[in-house]
């Protein structure tokens, strides 16, 4: 490899992602953030390389090691499954900074000091969207289509459910984790099954949701999205989406690496730091009252009046300040 130290004026980032950079979801949000940073800092100051589609940990580990070998300033492992590989690799490259998401674990307890962690507190936006859903449902039934009950998806869904209950405990939330990130047809039929159970507001997370959105549109049910702005898929029914902006975590990491700190800190996207943004669909005529309520809850989260605790076993509890 060509040592990056030779070109000290350029900051070089490499990222390894599990799906493609155009998935309109997890990987794309990272790709877009790096592109935005490059736009901001200039191509001669900031370069990035990406290895996509490395769902297999084994292949990803080889890629991570290789990027470190080549002297990248920051190597990002964008997938919670990559952690164990980092534990092996990071100590071998003490001069290189690593970042791992989504997680809070930087491995400092294992005496590894060159790993940053980042995550999205997607339960926050989920909660806000949940509150608005509860206000919009007429049937009193809301549907949620999820992939597999872990990580980011679980956080979002749990936050959403808590938001609905916060607004109205009577409302029934139907949740279906379809056990797949990629089966659009199954997502579609899951949404249909919810619609048949009278659900008139739906949400969902991960890259298979376009199938569900399709059914929601057919049935004229409302849709709330997350991870990316999905309004273009169904302008008539998408109410609002929680959008991720990883630059909020990446910028401080990059700055600290430039100053010589190679790891040890965990960053989170929150509503407060605007790493999470509630994006309303302009083409959808949302009741003023509902929008106001949503904005109010979001502000309460920003202010810390409402916060969330996640227990060891993953259960989420809503904590309201007195």
């Amino acid at each position, binding site marked *: 490899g060509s040592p990056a130290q030779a070109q000290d004026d350029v900051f070089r980032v490499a990222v390894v992602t599990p799906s493609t950079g155009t998935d309109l979801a997890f990987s794309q949000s990272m790709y877009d953030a790096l592109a935005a940073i490059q736009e901001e800092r200039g191509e001669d100051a900031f370069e990035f390389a990406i290895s996509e589609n490395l769902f297999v940990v084994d292949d990803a580990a080889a890629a991570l090691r290789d990027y470190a070998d080549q002297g990248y300033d920051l190597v990002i492992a964008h997938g919670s499954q990559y952690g164990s590989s980092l534990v092996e690799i990071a100590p071998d490259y003490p001069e290189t900074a690593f970042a791992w998401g989504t997680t809070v674990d930087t491995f400092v307890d294992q005496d590894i000091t060159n790993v940053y962690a980042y995550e999205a507190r997607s339960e926050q936006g989920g909660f806000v969207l949940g509150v608005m859903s509860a206000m919009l449902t007429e049937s009193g039934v809301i549907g949620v289509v999820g992939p597999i009950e872990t990580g980011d998806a679980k956080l979002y869904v749990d936050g959403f459910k808590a938001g609905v209950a916060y607004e109205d405990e009577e409302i029934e939330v139907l949740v279906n984790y379809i056990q*797949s990130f*990629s089966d659009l047809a199954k997502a579609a039929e899951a949404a249909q099954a919810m619609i048949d159970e009278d659900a008139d507001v739906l949400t969902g997370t991960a890259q298979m949701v376009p199938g569900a959105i399709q059914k929601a549109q057919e049935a004229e049910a409302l849709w709330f999205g997350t991870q990316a702005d999905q309004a273009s898929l169904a302008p008539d029914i998408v109410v609002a989406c929680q959008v991720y902006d990883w630059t909020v975590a990446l910028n401080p990491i990059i700055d600290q690496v430039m100053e010589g700190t190679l790891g040890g800190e965990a960053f989170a996207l929150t509503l407060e730091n605007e790493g999470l943004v509630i994006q309303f669909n302009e083409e959808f005529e949302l009741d003023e009252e509902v929008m106001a309520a949503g904005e109010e809850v979001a502000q309460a989260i920003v202010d810390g009046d409402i916060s969330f605790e996640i227990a060891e076993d993953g259960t989420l509890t809503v904590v309201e300040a007195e």
Partner: protein
Amino acid sequence: MIEDLLTASVIASGIRLAMPYLYAAIGETFGQRSGVLNLGVEGVMLLGAYSSFWGVYQLTPDKATSFDPMALAAGVLVAVLVGLLMGLATAFINVTLQAEQGISGIGIYLFGLGMSTLLFQKNFSQVVTVKGFPKIHFPVLSDIPLIGEIFFRQNLLVYGAFALIPLAWFVLHKTTFGLRLRAVGQNPEAADSMGISVTRVRYMAVIIGGVLASVAGASMSIGHLNVFQQNLTDGRGFIAVALVYFGSWRPYGVMYGALLFSLVTALQIKAVTIGIGIPSELLSMTPYLLTIIALIFASRRIDQPAALTRPFERGE
């Protein structure tokens, strides 16, 4: 509890889910009956799904609001052409080059997966939707309780899929081509010594399989989901291959298998949605497990093509 689960809308959902399996599995039935196992169905489905979607997207003047019959017809046509080409390539690899069919199919799958992903990323910067085949509401029939929802509010491609079953049966059993095809799959040496061109018959069968696999993909992208994205078919092509075994190489058997599998899938979705207290990790395996158990105990092998996967070459 079963009344809560087995509603008309669940059955209708099962029928929708069965559609791509029917096209793909009937196509594969032709190939296998002639002695060629094509494991690449999934790849051809993806190409069909992409190309028909692309066709409809390009040709629909006002994309999001109304459907355009001409654009839809063109979309299906594009899928047919793509299927034809892929079928030809598959036949060339398996029949002429006599590749190991278990492996060459994986190559075709990967080609289809890679190609459809690449073209999608190149031509569409993000996920977009089109107006696909609309549901046909038959005037009176569609209002009959139960039956109406199940049978008379589906779209044209669904009806096409079910019409394919008797058609395939007829072709296999009542035409000279069908007879040649079955003979070539059972005993190519005997067929050859009767002056039948084993190569030509297998090419035809594999091309039919390619066209139907491609239409199966189209039936998902423009006949159900109205969207394309990477790996849209998500393994359905492999299930279709399994359904051919399940159906003992007979069109009606394939249909029963596809319906069983899809209905159980729909039931499982319903069960998770209304929450019957079984973890969804387990429930989501039930369609597979049930199908497999049914298979183990119901397997009949009479029509199994004895020369399946066996290339044919005449002495010297």
